[in-house]
């Protein structure tokens, strides 16, 4: 039992289970999944489908956070990627031609790789603090996305492009398969030495350099991967609604992604990361949003709930907070203990 409680997925899973349980009590047919025209329909499928862009972005963010970094520009990359793909498709002669879709998707993915590379270069080569380095692209990227779309919402009428975000494969939404693929690639870091390198760079870049890890390359790689994830998320998001909106697509995604990472148990101080935790964190956020919609509370109230979730999760993770609570619950006090904590902290 003790081991179970200590497991890093225990608390996130509890929260998710509690949310789902609440939904079940509130509307008993929450878990019903119906088959319709060869597609599965149901609230659970919706959560997976609508949550997939967030999961993707959060996976990329997890690796960045593991190196003690942060990537604020993901929301802008989401917008740029969707805008570029939609623009390229809308300019084409035949919006349903497979070649055009492929070129547009590759263009968007390639661009997001370059944007990720830009972030990575600023952080690793120029040595700028991650939060500031990615702030540049966060501010400018939103402008670039609006420049690409011309401030309008670009709509495309391509059934093939819409398939990426809303089509279904083997009765499940196609986006879920994209997420699984990316998650598997990310999980490869756990099977190779790369995961260890990422964690060591997050703990101490200088020490890992001394130990022979090419810290700069590792940092570069995680930012490129994060850009890639955000780019794919942008494709999913824009193809789901068959349009690109430079102003609002991916707005505040960076915050949701960071929230998912933190809920999943990855510390913002770097040095360790839990990809499965992040996925559960993202699912918690999406379930929360769905729940709030379902209860009929104005969706804007989600922000208040999110605020308390962030705060609660952070407080639980904070050593100082736990120590303060532990002290309150303790019945015996030793004078020497106080002396030690005073000198150590």
């Amino acid at each position: 039992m003790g081991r179970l409680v200590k497991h890093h997925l225990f608390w996130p899973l509890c929260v998710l289970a509690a949310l789902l349980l609440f939904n079940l009590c509130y509307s008993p047919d929450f878990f019903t999944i119906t088959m319709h025209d060869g597609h599965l329909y149901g609230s659970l499928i919706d959560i997976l489908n609508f949550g997939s862009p967030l999961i993707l972005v959060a996976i990329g963010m997890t690796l960045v956070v593991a190196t003690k970094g942060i990537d604020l520009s993901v929301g802008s990359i989401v917008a740029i990627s969707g805008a570029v793909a939609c623009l390229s498709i809308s300019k084409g002669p035949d919006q349903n031609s497979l070649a055009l879709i492929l070129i547009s998707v590759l263009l968007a993915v390639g661009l997001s790789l370059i944007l990720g590379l830009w972030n990575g270069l600023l952080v690793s080569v120029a040595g700028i603090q991650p939060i500031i380095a990615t702030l540049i692209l966060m501010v400018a990227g939103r402008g670039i996305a609006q420049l690409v779309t011309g401030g309008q919402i670009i709509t495309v009428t391509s059934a093939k492009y819409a398939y990426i975000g809303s089509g279904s494969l083997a009765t499940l939404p196609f986006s879920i398969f994209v997420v699984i693929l990316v998650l598997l690639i990310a999980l490869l870091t756990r099977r190779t030495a790369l995961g260890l390198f990422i964690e060591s760079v997050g703990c101490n870049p200088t020490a890992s350099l001394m130990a022979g890890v090419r810290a700069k390359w590792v940092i570069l790689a995680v930012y490129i991967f994060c850009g890639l994830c955000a780019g794919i998320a942008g494709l999913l998001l824009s193809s789901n609604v068959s349009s690109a909106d430079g102003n609002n697509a991916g707005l505040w995604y960076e915050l949701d992604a960071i929230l998912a990472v933190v809920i999943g148990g990855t510390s913002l101080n770097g040095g360790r990361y839990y990809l499965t935790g992040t996925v559960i964190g993202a699912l918690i956020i999406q379930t929360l949003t769905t729940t709030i919609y379902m209860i009929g509370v104005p969706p804007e109230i989600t922000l208040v709930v999110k605020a308390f979730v962030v705060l609660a999760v952070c407080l639980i993770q904070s050593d100082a907070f736990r120590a303060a609570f532990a002290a309150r619950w303790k019945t015996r006090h030793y004078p020497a203990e106080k002396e030690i904590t005073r000198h150590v902290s």
Partner: protein
Amino acid sequence: MSLNRKYIPIVVTILLFLVMFAAGSFRYTGFFSLQVLMNLLVDNAFLLVTAVGMSFVILSGGIDLSVGSVIALSTMISASLVQQLGWPPLVVIPLVLLMGAAFGSAMGAIIHYFKIQPFIVTLAGMFLARGLCYVISIDTITIDHPFYTAVAQTKIPLPGGSFLSISAVIALIVVAAAIYTAHYTRFGRNVYALGGNEQSALLMGLPVARTKVLVYTLSGFCSSLAGVVFTFYMLSGYGLHAVGFELDTIAAVVIGGTLLTGGVGYVLGTFFGVLIQGVIQTIISFEGTLSSWWTKIVIGLLLFVFILLQRVLSSGGPARKSS
């Protein structure tokens, strides 16, 4: 080199402002006038007030993401109390300022006592304040109380036929008070010390806890004051006011030459950082054909240049080795 290294960023900022203003004056007729200069203050008064609060936070080595939401919440509370409950503005405004300060100090206390990163705590604050706006109302509340319209329309004439608004005067007073606080009070020195190195500040016996909480209190106060100024400017309360404003504010502070690692920078730099953003917007509106998103791209570029400049200065200098 006769010029002290530490003044280079602020000198670059001021020069950049002068060059941009001169370029605008040569290019567009009617640009070179005192009124255009004054309009920079009139239109950016709330940005200036917020950026001053943010400067202190960044100087202390922290960051405050909640400023935009606190502005929105202030406009919302003012609007609902004045319009819907009919409270007198002279009661509402101090109440709003108190609310902002309390909000900031709560965040500061959590940051300090529970040792959570400022980024995350103020992020939660941002969500909370924005959400509370919608709890009050989802729609815009227009303010037509005579006090607010009077303040909004009052023009203070200056020699040369130009004028300032009351908001701009408030902003200038805030800047003056901030410069005094930063450079001539104990609190100001403590903030710089805290930003330079928290551990050292603690070992020197400086009141780290008090300073840290006060810095966020100050930022919350400035944000709510900016919210009050914003209600004079927009004459409405709305939950979507000042979305993404925290980025503009941080950008203004960075362009003003303040190091985001803390400990280095000047409030005067922030003042010019705000003016530079104002000039960019003015040039774009004079150009007419350029769209508003160019502002974001240009600000992004400027951020890049200034951050790189700081990086070169701080890594090349013997005095400071950035972490």
